[in-house]
């Protein structure tokens, strides 16, 4: 049996934050909540426009016979119909110069994220791009445990056309020993 690992999303200000386990999508929008319906919370096309940040992390609830879990990678594995004009996703994922993200006092923001300042990878990274315990070479040896936060944000511009953007697929990968 493989380890039991789900994606968890944290929302709200730090003092009253709420975590949702086993989210079913990473839909970006103008509301700080999990599994949102994008049409209900559209992102305004404007210069320097942004969705609310997504603060995601892996939650290991059961090691499932594994001794170590490591080598976390996150990337866009399918762009669907591609990017619309001015559309992009920023993140804090990186394979070098990695710094662990700390949950912010005010919670996720819908202004230009100072934490998600990297371009979201569109292919499998050459190494881990999300840390455990603040290190890309970190590992989880016992459950329950969390990875570091992955912080993602959808960016738009004044030129981004109205209507739905194309559906994409995000892949989360880890190794178990």
């Amino acid at each position, binding site marked *: *049996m*493989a*380890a039991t*690992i789900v*994606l968890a999303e944290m929302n709200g200000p730090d003092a009253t934050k709420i975590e949702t386990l086993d*989210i*079913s*999508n*990473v*839909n*970006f929008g103008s509301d700080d909540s999990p*599994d949102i319906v*994008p049409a209900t919370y559209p992102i305004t096309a404007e210069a320097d426009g942004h969705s609310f940040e997504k603060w995601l992390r892996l939650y290991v609830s059961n090691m499932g*016979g*594994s*001794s*170590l879990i490591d*080598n976390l990678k996150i990337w*866009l*594995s399918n762009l669907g119909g591609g990017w619309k004009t001015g559309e992009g*996703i920023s993140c804090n994922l990186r394979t070098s110069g990695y710094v662990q993200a700390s949950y912010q006092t005010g919670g996720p923001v819908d202004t230009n994220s100072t934490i998600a300042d990297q371009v979201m990878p569109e292919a499998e990274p*050459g*190494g*881990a791009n999300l840390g455990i315990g603040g290190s890309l070479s970190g590992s989880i040896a016992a459950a329950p445990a969390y990875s570091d936060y992955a912080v993602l944000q959808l960016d738009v511009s004044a030129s981004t056309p109205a209507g*739905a*953007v*194309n*559906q*994409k*697929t*995000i*892949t*989360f*990968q*880890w*190794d*178990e*020993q």
Partner: protein
Amino acid sequence: MQKSSPAWIARIGSGEAQVLQFEQLYELREKITELTIAWPCNTYKVNVSEKYFILNGGMKIRMKGMEDIEDAIILYTRRVRKTLPINGDGQLLEGGENEEISYLLGIQGNAFGTKREYLVHVSQDGMIWVWRDKR
């Protein structure tokens, strides 16, 4: 194809091959001299002490540089990929399968002062990738 977990068949030292549970591999990883990952229709074997692979009962495969590895030990990993939609309808992929499991199997050690890994990346449905580095 119905997905199933493979059997892990290991030889410890010069002993007889025996079936292990995945969770036993970590404790025995420095003693395993040969490890086979076996599904009903395909098998992948790595011989640690003699440094070669055998894929589906075929010829011995020794990648260039494998023979230089010193103090080789088994390298194995269960690799899990989970996918989620962005801006989608929140539904899982067809059949509810949004999780794929594959396995990395090979040897690791040092050669000329540098850490080296040689491995195959396999899945039940027969996909095979041969890599020189786990990452």
